């Protein structure tokens, strides 16, 4: 790919979220072949993609919405949703934005220009990360790294997309994955060539891209042999979206000796204290360690959404491959989260680590659900799981659903689980030493999640810590 092409892609991406000249077509609510054709046509997709979308639609129509999770929400009318809606009506200036949101931006230290972008306000072209992006694009381009929107990839790299899309999360994997396969609007594509170590955290400087594509996002990351990439998704700034239903799909492929580190901060609008108005987040994230000695590591900090249904998983197919899952999930207000992971051990000497920290406050309900499966041929495989829950107050809940299956005698599986409560005695002890109540809660919570926060890339970790404090404000009453 030439420099100018990269620039073009990058600049288009840049415009996507906040430019005022996006065509504002909207399809009427409802989901049928016509809708799919409309979307595909809007995106100027090749025929094969449209065919796949339609195939997914028909499969989805025959599937049933799952209800096994520990979640409670009003039924979703899928025919009442518009699957390609006109861009949000952006405010003209920050004065029109909810002061509460601005206050949060302030606390997170988000620069003014970026605040505007997050709210969809058009900004001047001098916004300084444009030049930053151009510099980075050149670096990536020189290394042969492909980093573009999935729509772009479908047009420009059809062979890679055809080969890997649906290879980790099949079209019919689950109800929401099938829905996403039919209607996905955009997302990210990353390809790291053989032996290349991506020299920067991807998406740190591109975080704005996600805006406007959040509803049915589709991401595909392929790390070719002996390559490395660290990808950061989302951001700590509160994100609002009029679309209540989110169903994203993320697929990761690590070939022989490759390593993918995927970090997420999820802070979609959580709804109010009655659970009204928040985002329903039904996400399918899965990676495959396809080659020997490959590694996939998921780290997530989940603080937003009113409903979270999410199980970032690893299929450990290559021998000696490694899967990791580090998670902090906070539910406060009336939020509900059913989240965890699946570690499927297929290859020999595969190992997986699961560290999950659930924090519940006010009326929040937090469930850990995780599967560790050791298959027949997975000689000498091991898993270590630690699932801890912390309760703040007496109206919240924590639940743990571990599933352990082993078909190989040489496997080792360890599972530890604890549930604890921030006790009045702990808070009082810290306050007696002069620490105020808010700092005391924060200290206890940070202590609790330390092992997971340490896994985040530095810059992300700083944001995550701030975010935890903000999320927990007012959770002690």
């Amino acid at each position: 790919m030439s420099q100018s092409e990269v620039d073009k892609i990058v600049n288009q991406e840049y415009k996507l979220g906040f430019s005022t000249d996006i065509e504002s077509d909207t399809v009427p609510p409802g989901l049928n072949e016509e809708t799919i054709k409309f979307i595909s046509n809007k995106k100027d997709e090749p025929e094969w993609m449209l065919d796949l979308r339609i195939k997914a639609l028909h499969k989805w129509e025959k599937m049933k919405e799952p209800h096994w999770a520990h979640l409670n929400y009003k039924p979703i009318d899928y025919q009442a949703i518009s699957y390609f809606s006109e861009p949000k009506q952006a405010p003209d200036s920050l004065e029109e934005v909810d002061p509460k949101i601005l206050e949060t931006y302030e606390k997170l230290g988000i620069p003014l220009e970026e605040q505007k972008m997050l709210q969809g306000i058009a900004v001047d072209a001098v916004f300084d990360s444009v030049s930053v992006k151009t510099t980075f694009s050149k670096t990536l381009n020189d290394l042969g790294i492909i980093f573009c929107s999935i729509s772009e990839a479908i047009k420009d790299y059809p062979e890679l997309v055809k080969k890997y899309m649906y290879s980790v999360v099949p079209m019919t994997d689950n109800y929401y994955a099938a829905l996403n396969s039919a209607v996905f609007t955009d997302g990210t594509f990353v390809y790291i060539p053989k032996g290349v170590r991506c020299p920067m955290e991807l998406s740190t400087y591109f975080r704005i891209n996600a805006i406007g594509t959040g509803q049915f996002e589709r991401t595909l990351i392929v790390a070719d042999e002996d390559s490395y990439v660290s990808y950061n998704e989302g951001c700590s700034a509160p994100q609002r979206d009029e679309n209540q239903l989110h169903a994203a799909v993320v697929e990761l492929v690590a070939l022989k000796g490759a390593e993918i580190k995927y970090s997420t901060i999820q802070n979609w609008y959580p709804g109010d204290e009655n659970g009204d108005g928040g985002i329903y987040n039904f996400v399918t994230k899965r990676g495959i360690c396809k080659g020997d000695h490959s590694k996939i590591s998921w780290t997530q900090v989940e603080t937003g959404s009113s409903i979270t249904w999410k199980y970032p998983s690893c299929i450990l197919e290559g021998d000696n491959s490694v899967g990791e899952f580090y998670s902090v999930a906070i539910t406060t207000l009336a939020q509900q989260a059913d989240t965890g992971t699946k570690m499927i051990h297929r290859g020999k000497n595969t190992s997986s680590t699961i560290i999950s920290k659930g924090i519940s406050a006010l009326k929040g309900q937090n469930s850990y659900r995780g599967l560790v499966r050791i298959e027949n041929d997975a000689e000498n495989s091991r898993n270590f799981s630690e699932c801890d829950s912390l309760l703040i107050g007496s109206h919240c809940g924590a639940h743990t659903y571990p599933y352990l299956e082993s078909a190989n005698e040489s496997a080792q599986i360890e599972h530890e689980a604890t549930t604890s409560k921030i006790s009045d005695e702990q808070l009082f002890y810290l306050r007696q030493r002069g620490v105020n109540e808010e700092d005391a809660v924060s200290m206890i919570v940070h202590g609790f999640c330390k092992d997971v926060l340490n896994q985040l890339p530095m810059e992300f970790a700083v944001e995550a810590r701030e975010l935890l404090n903000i999320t927990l404000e007012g959770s002690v009453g």
Partner: protein
Amino acid sequence: MLEIKNLKAQIENKEILKGLNLKLEKGKVHAIMGPNGAGKSTLSKTIVGHYEVKVTDGEILFDDKNVLDMEPEERALNGIFLSFQNPVEVPGVNNAYFLRNALNAKRKFEGKEELNAAEFLKLMKSHLEQLGMKKDMIQRSLNEGFSGGEKKRNEILQMEILEPKVVILDEIDSGLDIDALKAVSEGINRLKSEDRTFLVITHYSRILDYIKPDYIHVLQDGKIVKTGGYDLVHALEAEGYKIIDEE
């Protein structure tokens, strides 16, 4: 320095302190002795604003401020320190990190500059050495997995670093072996000063032999019923609390 007037307090709707009067003098060490259930721990909890205690009458004046109007952390920042009878474990919260935060909260309150990590570590290490504590106290989580003796020494460590004006020691001697008792007592003696008041609550005379209190108060049924000098300890030791009833 700290004056308690006609203090009445309840725990779980039961009146424990029944019009208690006590004056703690600057620079002096006061000991409170008394039978089980007399209200010794309730008294210490009331002074620091523990959530279980409900005050129904009276006042506690500290440098002419009414302590009862203050939040627990305000009382701490003003210089009131309680060494807990059973310090609670706080997993994952680093001992040094916590103590630096507490010290800096106090320094900020007093308008002093906060200590950075390096300055604080230096300070903490010197105190650890004095108290005969291991260096790993810096990395370990606050009270988590500490032995009884380690917990008590850690309380003394916090006291030494926070340099409070009023120190309440609630059964600091319980469960300590002789070496730990000595180390703890030495820590207390090191901190004795003209500007500081100690209130030592105990069942036993053993620790009092080390720290030599200026006054002994006997607490019985929610009131101070007798006050005397250091020799009162031995009379109580020999005769038990019945000597008070006989008077």
